[in-house]
């Protein structure tokens, strides 16, 4: 392993919760990110266990899906345009799945 290659591999921890863990077949994932990637772009890149972009509908984040970065609501920041940084914990919560 060359140290330069490792340094370029920035990652975030992605948490699927509130029902999304069933769609994605996992609760946690470590995902490599490009510098400057937004929440929306990250959500586009995440595929569920059937290979679908389950977080996206009509090019936006599906209604009823809440996103937090390090336990902070992205609505406090720039919404889906909030930039995700290496080492962040990005949580996707579904408010659609059964009550």
């Amino acid at each position: 392993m060359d140290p330069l290659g490792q340094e370029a591999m920035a990652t975030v921890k992605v948490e699927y919760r509130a029902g999304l863990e069933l769609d994605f077949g996992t609760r946690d994932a470590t995902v490599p990110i490009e510098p400057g990637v937004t929440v929306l772009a990250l959500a586009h890149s995440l595929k569920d266990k059937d290979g679908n972009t389950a977080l996206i509908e009509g090019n936006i984040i599906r209604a009823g899906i809440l996103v937090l970065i390090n336990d902070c609501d992205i609505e406090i920041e720039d919404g889906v345009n909030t930039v995700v940084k290496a080492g962040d914990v990005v949580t996707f919560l579904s408010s659609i799945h059964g009550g």
Partner: protein
Amino acid sequence: MPCAICNGKAAIKYASDGRLLCKPCFFQTFEDAVLHTIEADSLFTPGQRVAIGVSGGKDSSVLTHVLFVLNERHSLGLDLHMVAIDEGIRGYRDDSLACVYRMQERYSLPLVVKSFKGLFGASLDDMDARRTTETPLCSECGVLRRNALLVGSREAQADIMALGHNADDAAEAVILNLMRADTARLGRGTKALTGGADIPRAKPMHRCTQRDIVMYAHLQRLDYFATECTYAPRALRNVPRAILGAAGGVIQGVPLKVMQVGEVLSRRLDTGTRPGLCERCGGMASGRVCQACLVVEAEGKRAREG
């Protein structure tokens, strides 16, 4: 961004009114809103035994947690019990009941579990297997679950039931009843307290939005089982849910606004007739026999013929 209450660092947008709050203020505000409903609508009185309808899902898990916290913090003097219903839906209810048992351990509350099989002679899966049409049994299931909760609450010797219905549920019901032109039931889901049967039904979270409930459950790291009922993809509820979901991205506080319209319309359309009691089971009934008893009768007939 500063917290609207304490000036600390805001972390959550409180969906009910759009304020930006820090985590502790969000918890406090959410719990105070439930306390406000309890007090403003005089839901409970000290010494009452309250049967919380629990499913293992997020709404009832949040309700149980908040009632438990408020009962201690404000000395409400409530004798909290839990009632769970096993409809007999494979791959759905088994896991959510496991969660109910974990809740029982965490809060040390007495629990009564009632099953469709035991009460009505058939599980929901049995009833579905007898169906020849694609129509889901959701409305029948709802009617039976309501009845089973009443039976379970009686067994717990409860004075009142506490249910996890939220503002989004109420708004969905308003839209659904509008589409069906069911004016008599238009505002039914919007009230925090409904009487009629021997045990009234209280909904302490009826003004809490789904978004705030999900946020609260996550940030409190509550244990709950989030999955869709296996019959849900066929349910009629998906229509109003999609409408509310689409509107929610554009208009602030949509569920509360739709609820408000339901309340106003139902007051204007109120004919003054009050439901009576079912002559068979004592539950709430608009005729002589309640919906639950009619469903049980129809299912029994289908079972004998099938």
